[in-house]
């Protein structure tokens, strides 16, 4: 009796985690955020999310077919991009804007630069920036969050009262009229997903625990932003309150968790991640101070995405020195090569 066995290289056992579970973590977390937006903005939030996901996935499949490759159904990266986009926009945004942003995110920022795992720029940030350039101020006028059934699913001719977010107020140097508790719970006008501060923080903890997002990046980023806000408050409030306001207004927290936590478009080395977090914090705060749009986070993310290669190589050179010195020290206790 002869066995039908095949030869393959080592190792012969694998971790049970695969690409699907990695992506599903992000999808699960975003579903929880969507549940909170449903609570605040009604069914329109969910329909926007579903529409954006549909457009992203369709564009992704189309682009894969154009490149003569087989579309991979288990690849949820387009789903994640589709889910992220409406969360950065107001709940009263027209469906065409979301569709345009999704098409640009997938067909311009993802596939021409290499596809899954190889893209340089964050697709969700690119889509949002494109929409911000095209439609300008319409992207920064937010409806009041509650009651939830105020927004009909298809707007048509309905009149929706739109307000400005605290980020706009801060940009002008004023103090937002919402208390800190209100802001933490999310009942103030702002980007759909980014207002739920506590929920986003909980998602961050989950992602760090599951190792999708490594802890060095958000900690460095938020520490830098807090330091900046502490030293240079924009409004006439106490320094600690300024820190809280900066962290809770606009897309800062959301971007720090989901845009800067994207493992593909950020550096891989822990040392590089810390340096990258610090640099991103400085750039974002500078954008907030001196930029003419009230929300500079996605633009800052795009700028920093272009520098990722530099950070990685810097980290590699630093580690190279450490590694070689370690291998010299332990030369007599050298690691035994496997026979």
């Amino acid at each position, binding site marked *: 009796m*002869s*066995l*039908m*066995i*095949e*030869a*393959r*290289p*080592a*190792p*012969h*056992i*694998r*971790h049970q*985690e*695969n*690409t699907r*579970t*990695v992506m599903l973590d992000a999808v699960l977390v975003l579903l929880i955020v969507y549940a909170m937006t449903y609570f605040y903005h009604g069914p329109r939030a969910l329909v926007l999310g579903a529409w954006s996901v549909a457009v992203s996935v369709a564009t992704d499949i189309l682009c894969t077919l154009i490149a003569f490759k*087989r579309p*991979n159904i*288990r*690849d949820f*990266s387009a789903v994640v991009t589709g889910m992220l986009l409406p969360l950065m926009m107001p709940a009263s945004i027209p469906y065409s804007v979301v569709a345009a942003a999704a098409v640009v995110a997938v067909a311009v920022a993802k596939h021409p630069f290499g*596809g*899954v*795992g*190889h893209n340089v720029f964050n697709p969700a940030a690119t889509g949002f920036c494109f929409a911000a350039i095209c439609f300008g101020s319409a992207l920064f006028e937010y409806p009041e969050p509650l009651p939830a059934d105020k927004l009909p699913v298809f707007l048509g001719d309905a009149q929706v009262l739109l307000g400005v977010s605290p980020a706009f107020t801060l940009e002008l140097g004023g103090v937002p009229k919402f208390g800190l508790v209100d802001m933490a719970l999310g009942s103030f006008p702002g980007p759909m997903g980014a207002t739920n501060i506590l929920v986003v923080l909980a998602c961050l903890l989950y992602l760090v625990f599951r*190792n*999708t997002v*490594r802890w*060095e990046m958000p900690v460095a980023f938020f520490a830098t932003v807090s330091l900046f806000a502490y030293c240079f408050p924009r409004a006439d409030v106490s320094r600690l309150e300024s820190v809280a306001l900066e962290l809770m207004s606009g897309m800062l927290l959301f971007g720090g968790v989901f845009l800067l936590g994207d*493992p*593909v*478009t950020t550096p*891989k*080395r*822990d040392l590089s991640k810390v340096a990258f977090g610090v640099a991103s914090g400085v750039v974002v705060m500078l954008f907030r101070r001196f930029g003419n749009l009230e929300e500079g986070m996605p633009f800052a993310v795009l700028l920093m995405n272009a520098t990722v290669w530099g950070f*990685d*190589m810097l980290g*590699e*050179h630093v*580690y*190279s020195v*450490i*590694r*070689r010195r370690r*291998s010299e020290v*332990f030369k007599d*206790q050298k*690691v*035994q*090569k*496997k*026979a």
Partner: protein
Amino acid sequence: MAMFTKGIILEQHKEPAFSKAIVRFVNPQTESLGTGISPLEDPMRAEAGEIIEIAKAARIVDERDGKMLYRKLLRAQGRAVAVIADAVDDEPYLSSKITPMLRCQEAAIGGLRLCMRVAGTNNCLVMVYRMTGDLETQIPKSIGGVRVVRLWGGYPAESHASKIKVGPGRKLTVSAGALIHLYRAVTEQRRQSTAFITVAGDCIANPMNLEVSLGITVMQVLERCGMAAEPTHVVCGGPMTGIAIMNAEKTLITYTTRAVLAFRENKRDAHYSCIGCGRCEQACPVGLNPMYIHRFVQNSYYRNLLPFDAHLCTGCGTCSYVCPSKLWVSVSVQKARQYALDHFVDPDGEVDELDD
């Protein structure tokens, strides 16, 4: 951080082979081969030179690194500051060093004492890998009077071996199987004709530790233990670093075959490419960056590999293990390692760009 938490924690799967007695599966003709040296009066008080002669005549090979034992003893004669018995089984499924250590204690400790006589030292210890898990048998704190040192931590355990403090100087490390064969050679004048292996895997009906004669085919071993399902690959060696063989009827058991594992794997759609998650970089115990090395090697971009230090790779296979896309990252890193050794590292061990 990759530099400070070395290695990853693997699920061990050592039961039920670990708690069963060792089964002998030997060829009676080869078992009775002798060393040809006349018996000693007091084997445990033999001289160092005699022990080395016996080791040479018995042709004992240390399964840890494939070297002849007598050569190791020659180099360590009178110079080693400590003798370490290696009973470390850090790869899953394997227990072919720790089980003989526990089950043939007298022989193993006897062999250890003989090595101590050669080295001229009284300092000795037994090194085991202790990952608490599903082990039913407890590993004692001392075996035959020799203290047992546990290596804690993730795979690969060798990266934690430097934590053992036995003092400066040369150490003699011998694996448990070689110690047992040395004891048998000195006391019973028997040549080494067997090896200790673990037979395990999800296709094996009765996983166990065997003492098999050298030269038995892998197929016979598999049939001895019984196969519960048809395997898709059979591995000689550990699951992380072993070699998948192609013909079970023509592959023989050798001195350094530590295990025969039979796995059945479902063919899955492997259309994934690298998703850039960075888990391989996190898991590497040496601190390399397998993701970039893999990408560079895929694009044959070898010249820019200098700062990545691919020559420091130890071949543990951890990067491939954690990859969610099931890519063969370790293969690419080995290629880069070969290139780096050829082009970047000069004979003194200094790393620099060599002139081609």
